């Protein structure tokens, strides 16, 4: 079929003065502003819009809305290419480009439609049956074939050039859907002054209303919708969001919606997002989501030209497009007559209304009076034709042939399923209503109520009344006053005759239930036959309702057919639960701004610029950026690290240590608190002194370590490792708030408030003496080892700690964050005559490995204090967290892996972290492994590669022994000697430094 199907008049949503050009599969067409891609294609006589998933059957659009299973296309191109877009909701814009999916080489001739010949093998569960053997074929052969043939379009391979926003909003009443019920609810709630948010998926309000034929309050419904929108827009307390799909209903009335801000234009204007993801916190919700029409299940019911009756009507009335020139309407309910009226009004020939019911309803009588041929007790049997419908053969209910009718469009209706997706997401199990022939929401769990077709009320007067009442109910449930409400909008009461349950029209051919996943009535029967009779099993076995449309048009029919196969009533079969999202949401919308550099914040220390100026290479430590090393020109990584660690021990080095966790502790019971948190004693620590502390988890394993200083009687400063700063704080908060609320102790994180440097090396004292000349005396007498002082410097408070991680004479100086750069510069300047160099985290690590100090690599959550050689620190004079369970049998076993030092005894090669220690390198496996290497470095002080390791039996068993550090990844097994982990200056003489 070709040529123009645009009607000469009508089309409430299109603007005939604004023609638009667009392309589909390379061909140029034109449509009007307000068209969807589907309506514009239909207007141009294009009914073939896609190929089906499994059998590659030709398909046109089945619906006119977001429930569309067939007309799924790729939109745009290049980086903006977007697969699986529903042509029925894609708004036309000038220059739109779309291509069909899942076909080769072309939509008209798809080579894989030959799959239909194989269809006996492609029934339900065919993946499981056909591709079982041989197993080795699965990945290399079968999966590739399946992926290519069952394609769902191609995602763009380039980064998305558009931006996506996240936004939040609150409201008293959220109304979902701007059909008659939703508008009535928004009006009644909005007039009370409550904060109302009305969201509507489509670009226009009105839902299924017929713009001209439906009358509300004595006006054309189109006028009523316009006036209602105008009234709502005039209310400050009401917000209307169009083109916004509410896709998720989560706990505690938190809901998520996707606003398609610029999907209806070629490219978003500058500084505007493509889409916006809304998190909505609503006190009360009114669900006016409407219903989805169902397809009649007859042979070839998927042929292009076969559409849902409501969709045919929508194309005619909204877009001024007729899907056919001669239409047959097959229905089991009164709504088919609505479509007939719309078609007749538009001057389109209705060849026949085949009503499955035997009684002549009122609507049928009036249709007959206008001269339409209406037959009762008649069912469709098979759609005829090639790639488009050319006729329909009909049958009586008993299956006997009745007649053939020529037509180019079949409008079908098997009734309406209330849209219970959102309410099902809240956990409500929908209940079956026989007079609706559908599932309706049960008693709410969340603070919501339904109105209109969404709960099975299909007459306009009923929808308006329910919407009005629901809006008021929501307001009063939110605890607000409704005042005196205006009368609800009125429409003529219409008596609707009950629909007749028709789930399968008699026939032997392919009658589709789930169009998108190619599930036929026979597949459901087969699933039951093969034992997959539970609704959840049948769903997964047949893939019914598992496509991107979530089975909006198919689920109820599928359940009904399963019930028939099981010989049970529908309520006994039950429903599957719907889960978010209601319709597909692009990953970009979920990511929002959090991509690339904005994926997570970058934390820079106060002295970041100082490091940058000196050529630092930075490393990520959690979110922090820390100087890793400072290469000189032409210097490699390893050379730079070697030079820095050597130089610190010869002259002096400065290192940014701002990222260490810092926690300020106040209160009279601070000492007692520390006593319970740390394994060692704190009661005797005098003000002005620091001490190394180790804390365990309650299960007895080592948690964290650091130095804690007593700044005053009731004031301590704790430091933690960079990685554990947040965890330690939470641990302490638990202890003080939950375990010992009686202790007078208060604390807060000061990591970001105080920055710090370590100055280490023989010249450290001279440098600081010069930098802080008049501010603080750093002599050995005034500031002995482990001494702490607070002083005023350059108009700010500073803290100096004589502590050492490197094993050299060393100090750490802390100043408020804002003074960090000034402090670094002052020390840097003072150090110029004393050989001061900057050193990074790598050299820091070399220096501590040489001293046998543990760090993150050793604190892996599986080690005890004794494993680290710190068993003696555990006080026996006081209780502390982890004490009891640290004494368990396995925790104190002799053969535990304990900290040792390793020296590489070979002249070439290197040590690597992660290597396993074995006696016989040719017999290295999990059983013969004696332990593992945790940290390694090329040590300038020792003159060879050294490392720390956990070794079963520790030094006691292996001191001086020769082992092999096996690393299968690099295929290395260098020989090592087991030594004490305290490689360098084991007596700690250098800590005191030369006295000057």
């Amino acid at each position: 079929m070709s040529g123009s199907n645009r009607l000469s008049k009508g089309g409430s949503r299109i603007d005939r003065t604004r023609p638009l050009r667009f392309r589909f599969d390379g061909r140029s067409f034109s449509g009007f502003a307000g068209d969807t891609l589907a309506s514009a294609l239909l207007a141009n006589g294009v009914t073939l819009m896609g190929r089906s998933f499994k059998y590659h059957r030709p398909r046109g659009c089945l619906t006119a809305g977001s429930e569309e299973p067939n007309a799924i296309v790729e939109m745009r191109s290049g980086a903006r290419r977007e697969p699986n877009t529903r042509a029925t909701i894609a708004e036309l814009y000038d220059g739109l480009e779309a291509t069909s999916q899942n076909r080769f080489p072309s939509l008209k001739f798809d080579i894989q439609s030959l799959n239909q010949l194989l269809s006996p093998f492609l029934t339900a569960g065919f993946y499981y049956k056909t591709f079982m053997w041989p197993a080795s074929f699965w990945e290399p052969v079968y999966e590739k074939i399946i992926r290519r043939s069952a394609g769902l379009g191609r995602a763009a391979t380039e980064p998305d050039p558009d931006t996506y926003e996240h936004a939040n909003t609150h409201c008293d009443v959220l109304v979902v859907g701007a059909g008659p019920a939703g508008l009535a609810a928004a009006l009644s709630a909005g007039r009370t002054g409550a904060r109302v948010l009305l969201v509507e998926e489509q670009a226009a309000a009105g839902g299924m209303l017929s713009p001209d034929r439906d009358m509300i309050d004595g006006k054309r419904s189109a006028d009523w919708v316009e006036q209602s929108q105008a009234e709502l827009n005039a209310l400050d307390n009401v917000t209307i969001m169009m083109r916004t799909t509410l896709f998720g209903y989560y706990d505690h009335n938190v809901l998520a919606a996707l606003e398609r801000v610029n999907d209806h234009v070629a490219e978003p204007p500058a500084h505007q997002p493509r889409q916006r993801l809304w998190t909505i916190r609503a006190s009360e919700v009114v669900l006016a989501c409407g219903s989805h029409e169902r397809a009649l299940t007859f042979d070839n019911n998927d042929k292009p030209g076969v559409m849902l009756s409501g969709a045919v009507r929508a194309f005619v009335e909204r877009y001024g497009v007729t899907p056919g020139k001669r239409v047959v309407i097959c229905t089991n309910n009164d709504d088919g007559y609505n479509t007939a009226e719309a078609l007749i009004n538009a001057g389109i020939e209705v060849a026949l209304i085949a009503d499955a019911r035997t009684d002549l309803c009122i609507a049928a009588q009036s249709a007959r009076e206008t001269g339409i041929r209406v037959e009762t007790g008649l069912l469709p049997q098979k759609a005829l034709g090639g790639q488009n419908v050319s006729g329909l053969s009909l049958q009586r209910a008993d299956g006997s042939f009745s007649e053939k009718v020529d037509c180019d469009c079949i409008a079908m209706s098997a009734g309406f399923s209330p849209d219970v997706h959102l309410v099902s997401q809240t956990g409500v199990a929908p209940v079956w209503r026989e007079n609706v022939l559908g599932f309706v929401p049960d008693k709410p769990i969340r603070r919501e109520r339904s109105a209109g077709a969404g709960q099975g009320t299909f007459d306009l007067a009923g929808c308006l009344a329910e919407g009005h009442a629901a809006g008021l109910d929501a307001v009063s449930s939110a605890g607000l006053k409704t005042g005196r409400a205006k009368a609800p909008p009125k429409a003529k009461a219409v008596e609707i005759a009950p629909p007749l349950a028709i789930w399968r029209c008699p026939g032997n051919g392919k009658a589709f239930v789930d169009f998108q996943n190619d599930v036929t009535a026979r597949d459901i029967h087969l699933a039951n036959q093969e034992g997959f009779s539970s609704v959840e099993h049948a769903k997964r076995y047949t893939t019914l309702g598992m496509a991107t449309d979530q089975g909006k048009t198919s689920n109820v029919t599928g359940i009904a057919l399963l019930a028939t196969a099981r010989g049970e009533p529908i309520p006994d079969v039950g429903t599957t639960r719907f889960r978010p999202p209601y319709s597909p949401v692009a990953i970009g919308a979920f990511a929002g701004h959090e991509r690339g550099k904005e994926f997570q914040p970058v934390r820079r220390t106060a002295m970041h610029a100082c490091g940058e100026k000196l050529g630092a290479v930075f490393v990520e430590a959690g979110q922090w950026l820390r100087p890793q090393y400072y290469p000189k020109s032409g210097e490699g990584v390893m050379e730079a690290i070697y030079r820095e660690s050597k130089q610190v021990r010869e002259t002096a080095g400065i290192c940014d240590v701002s990222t260490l966790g810092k926690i300020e502790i106040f209160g009279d019971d601070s000492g007692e608190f520390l006593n319970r948190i740390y394994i060692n004693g704190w009661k005797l620590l005098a003000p002005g002194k620091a001490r190394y502390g180790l804390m365990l988890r309650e299960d007895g394993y080592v948690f964290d370590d650091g130095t804690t200083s007593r700044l005053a009687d009731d004031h301590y400063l704790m430091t933690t490792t960079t990685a554990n700063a947040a965890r330690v704080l939470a641990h302490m908060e638990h202890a003080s708030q939950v375990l010992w609320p009686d202790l007078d102790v208060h604390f807060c994180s000061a990591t970001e408030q105080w920055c710090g440097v370590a100055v280490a090396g023989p010249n450290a004292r001279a440098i600081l003496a010069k930098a802080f000349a008049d501010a603080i005396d750093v002599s050995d007498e005034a500031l002995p080892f482990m001494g702490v002082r607070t002083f005023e410097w350059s108009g700010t408070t500073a803290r100096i700690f004589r502590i050492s991680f490197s094993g050299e004479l060393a100090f750490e100086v802390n100043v408020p964050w804002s003074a960090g750069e000034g402090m670094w510069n002052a020390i840097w300047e003072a150090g110029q005559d004393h050989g001061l160099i900057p050193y990074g985290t790598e050299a820091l690590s070399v220096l501590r490995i040489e001293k046998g100090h543990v760090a993150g690599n050793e604190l892996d959550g599986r080690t005890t204090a004794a494993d680290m050689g710190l068993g003696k620190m555990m006080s026996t004079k006081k209780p502390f967290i982890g004490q009891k369970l640290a004494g368990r049998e396995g925790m104190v076993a002799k053969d535990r892996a304990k900290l040792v030092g390793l020296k590489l005894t070979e002249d070439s090669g290197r040590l690597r972290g992660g290597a396993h220690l074995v006696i016989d390198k040719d017999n290295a496996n999990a059983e013969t492994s004696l332990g593992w290497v945790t940290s390694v470095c090329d040590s300038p002080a020792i003159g060879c590669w050294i490392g720390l390791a956990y070794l079963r039996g520790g030094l006691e068993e292996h001191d001086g022994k020769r082992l092999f550090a096996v690393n299968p990844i690099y295929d290395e097994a260098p020989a090592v000697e087991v030594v004490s982990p305290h490689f360098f200056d084991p007596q700690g003489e250098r800590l005191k430094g030369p006295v000057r």
Partner: protein
Amino acid sequence: MHRIDCPWCGTRDEAEFQYQGDATVVRPDPDASEEAFFRYVYLRENPKGWHTEWWHHVGGCRQWVKVVRNTLTHEIFATGRAQEDLPLPGTRAKPRRRTRPKQ
């Protein structure tokens, strides 16, 4: 997304909190047996229905908040301060302050 009524800050999003598990376990007295500590650290009920839990308000006041929550429906019945005893719904007994071991 849960909405949790912090007794210090008011109703806040779940994203501000860190779930910290069972709030019904009580740390044994330091003199208690190893077995008692073992139970305290490792053994947990996994109730279907009402449960008292810790939600740490890390993105807010940093208080450990006690929450009576239904693990099935996610409904929250009550929230309170760390030292408050919160009754489960349907329990008639007047909330009793739990005595905590002094250390």
